[in-house]
């Protein structure tokens, strides 16, 4: 026996797993489970009314016209926001990448230490990213009012920073020798990048850009909630008027819009030959550069036209950016926020804990729900010929209809949960739950479930099929294929996505806070409505620290499960 290698009792993975479970339990306690009244059964009839309205949405002519206009506005915000964020992201990504600074610093061959400017750039990019679009939106409303500029920049700035981070990672992971060759023949760094790094990484960049566009559509909807117009705005108005039939008209528009955007983006990526939606792990581009195909030209031209059209449609007033009043208002806001209100600290600590608890519960809920739905939603599992389908795939009888039905149902559920913004979910959830951590967590969980579930379904579809086929060929029952094949292969990726999404959840706790959920979001909402700038500054600062801490923990955990 002594010849067997000894098993390590507490592997890092296990330690992280235990820590995760502990965090979920603590969060449940913090949410007040088993202690106080959480469920408000008296609200059930209203919830039923809300749900039953889905069967008879308001389809009158004016309503459809309004829905169409609102959808266009939301789409236009998303398009303009994405376009700008890609622009910021490209510049920021280049400036935030190690390889760029090594290229600029001259003979980079024997330089190992990244220059301080690079680190500065990275730190600079971390701030806009940590603050949710909605908060940017509220800040900009204070500067420019409800001009479309507010909505577009509220998307473009945080998203630009996220894109910059991801782009810089992609660029740093791209082979550098071609760049070095050009640099060594006396080419300036920028031209050299355009002829080496950028074309090399183009496909990964493009694939990520499409993923960002999908996110932008969801953000543009949420931004409507601050009054910026579009579907989110109409949704909120209908919700406040308790006109559920109208609400559902907008919901259906939202499903169609999200479904269309997600579907076309997936088709495109498939066409390009890059399967991974979210570039958490980069593979070298496999297909020829898009710009060299006719369809590439068409796509480029189409996108350019769409962007131009969208900017024209909403005509954001860019002159406000450099107008004198903007500067004046910035100074006013700064003055009003001084000195910070330190008395707030004890309240901040408890609110921060509630926020973390909410995000932990939300992601636990989203990950488990997403996992459950991911299997029926993946097309290579229960369908005839799929891995877990016992049949051979030739049967065309009535028995083979069920897998299709469950696939459609699972996909529809995922689409519905992610298309409806978290704050709207929260409004629905507080029908039957008292405001607090739990309804916020459930609302966030529902929204993120849709996103995670789809990402996970894609992971499953892109699994290496050979070991699974081998297991199946061996005659292993479906359950064992799942346990010994699918889960071990896909779980690390699932967890990585879930942890990444946890970071996003934390940022999003703010937006459900606005509709009465607990934590820093609710505090922020209270302070905003009191124009309490000294308090706001502190709350935002606390939120930033929390975000950085959670990002750090999440990246540590991701590294250990890799």
């Amino acid at each position, binding site marked *: 026996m002594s010849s067997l290698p000894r098993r390590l009792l507490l592997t890092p993975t296990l330690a992280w797993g235990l820590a995760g479970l502990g965090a979920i339990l603590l969060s449940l306690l913090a949410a007040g489970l088993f202690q106080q009244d959480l469920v408000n059964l008296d609200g059930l009839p209203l919830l039923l009314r809300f749900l039953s309205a889905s069967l008879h949405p308001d389809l009158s002519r004016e309503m459809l016209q309004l829905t169409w206009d609102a959808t266009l506005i939301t789409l236009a915000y998303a398009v303009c926001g994405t376009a700008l964020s890609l622009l910021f992201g490209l510049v920021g990504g280049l400036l935030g990448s190690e390889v760029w600074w090594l290229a*600029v*610093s*001259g*003979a980079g*061959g*024997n330089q190992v230490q990244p220059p301080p400017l690079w680190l500065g750039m990275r730190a600079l990019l971390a701030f806009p990213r940590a603050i949710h679009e909605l908060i940017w939106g509220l800040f900009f409303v204070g500067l420019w009012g409800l001009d479309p500029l507010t909505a577009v920049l509220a998307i473009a700035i945080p998203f630009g920073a996220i894109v910059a981070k991801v782009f810089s990672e992609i660029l740093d992971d791209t082979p550098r*020798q*071609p760049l*070095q*060759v*050009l*640099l*060594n*023949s*006396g*080419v*300036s760094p*920028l*031209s*050299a990048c*355009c*002829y*080496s790094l950028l*074309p*090399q990484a*183009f*496909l990964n960049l493009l694939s990520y850009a499409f993923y960002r566009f999908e996110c932008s559509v969801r953000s543009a909807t949420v931004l409507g909630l601050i009054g910026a117009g579009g579907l989110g705005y109409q949704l909120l108005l209908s919700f406040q008027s308790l006109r559920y039939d109208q609400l559902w008209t907008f919901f259906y528009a939202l499903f169609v819009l999200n479904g269309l955007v997600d579907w076309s983006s997936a088709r495109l990526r498939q066409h390009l030959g890059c399967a991974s939606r979210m570039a958490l792990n980069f593979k070298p*581009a496999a*297909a*020829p*550069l898009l*710009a*060299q195909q006719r369809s590439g030209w068409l796509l480029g031209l189409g996108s350019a036209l769409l962007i131009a059209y969208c900017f024209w449609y909403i005509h954001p007033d860019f002159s406000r950016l450099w107008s004198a009043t903007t500067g004046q208002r910035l100074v006013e806001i700064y003055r009003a926020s001084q000195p910070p209100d330190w008395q707030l600290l004890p309240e901040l600590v408890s609110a921060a804990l509630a926020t973390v608890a909410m995000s932990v519960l939300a992601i636990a809920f989203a990950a488990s729900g997403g996992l459950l739905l991911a299997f029926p939603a993946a097309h290579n599992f229960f369908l005839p010929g799929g891995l877990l389908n016992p049949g051979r795939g030739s049967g065309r009888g009535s028995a083979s209809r069920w897998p299709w039905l469950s696939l459609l149902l699972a996909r529809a559920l995922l689409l519905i949960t992610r298309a409806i913004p978290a704050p709207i979910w929260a409004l629905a959830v507080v029908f039957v739950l008292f405001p607090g951590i739990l309804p916020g967590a459930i609302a966030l969980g529902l929204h993120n479930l849709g996103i995670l579930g789809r990402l996970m379904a894609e992971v499953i579809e892109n699994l290496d099929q050979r070991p699974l086929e081998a297991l199946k060929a061996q005659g292993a029952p479906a359950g064992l294929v799942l346990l010994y094949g699918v889960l071990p292969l896909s779980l690390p990726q699932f967890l990585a996505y879930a942890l990444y999404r946890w970071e996003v959840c934390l940022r999003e706790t703010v937006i459900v806070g606005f509709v009465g959920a607990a934590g820093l979001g609710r505090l922020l909402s209270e302070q905003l409505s009191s124009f309490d700038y000294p308090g706001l500054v502190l709350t935002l600062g606390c939120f930033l620290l929390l975000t950085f801490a959670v990002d750090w923990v999440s990246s540590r955990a991701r590294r250990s499960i890799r």
Partner: protein
Amino acid sequence: MAAPLFELKQVSHQFGQVQALTAISLCIWPGDRVALVGSSGAGKSTLIRLLNGTLRPNQGEVWALGRNLNQLRPARLRQVQSQIGTVYQQLHLVDNLRVVHNVNAGHLSRWSLPKALLSLLLPLELETATQALAQVGIPEKLYAVTRDLSGGQQQRVALARVLVQDPLAILADEPIASLDPSLSREVMDLLRQLCQQAGRTLVVSLHDVGFAQSHCDRIIGLRQGAVVFDCPSPQVSDGMLADLYSAPHE
């Protein structure tokens, strides 16, 4: 005779604990065709990377085109580097770009950024590119995607890029190490011809001493980072070569 094109003065370089070159001094004159020979790890690649300014020596000075590369500011250094073309064994082409762009990359040290960007959409200066590709024998591959070419063809694309760059000197680091013998001969012929035509200087590192003797007029033997011999090709004897590739003396 004119001033040397390259000059190394007591150059030493080490990577971490590994001593790659030790106190090398040598001059390379305009029009020279120099072969660097020696076993793997003798310091041939390091020497080439010092010559084109990729590396800065830990000690000593590298002069190229009458300038001390150590002391140049980035812009000046780029000016010098634009006169030095380098071909690598691994080519380092961007394989998802069309051939024309990889060839046009030779222009980049002269082109402005907007022109460079425009050319990625609508290839510019097609004539030069076609001419260069014709010189290396694959004019028909102008619009092919680089990854679809064979190894030998890609080597020619790399050469065409250097031609478009139109440098005073061509440095080639093991250009034929991964090619079969007949292709190797073609590429070496091409290199010699391209240098002879325009009076360019050639510095090429080679495993194959035969090619060094047949295609270069001067051979520098390197062993363990030091110059063992440096003389005209005809004077290199079998004894000297045997000595070069023998086990290191204790």
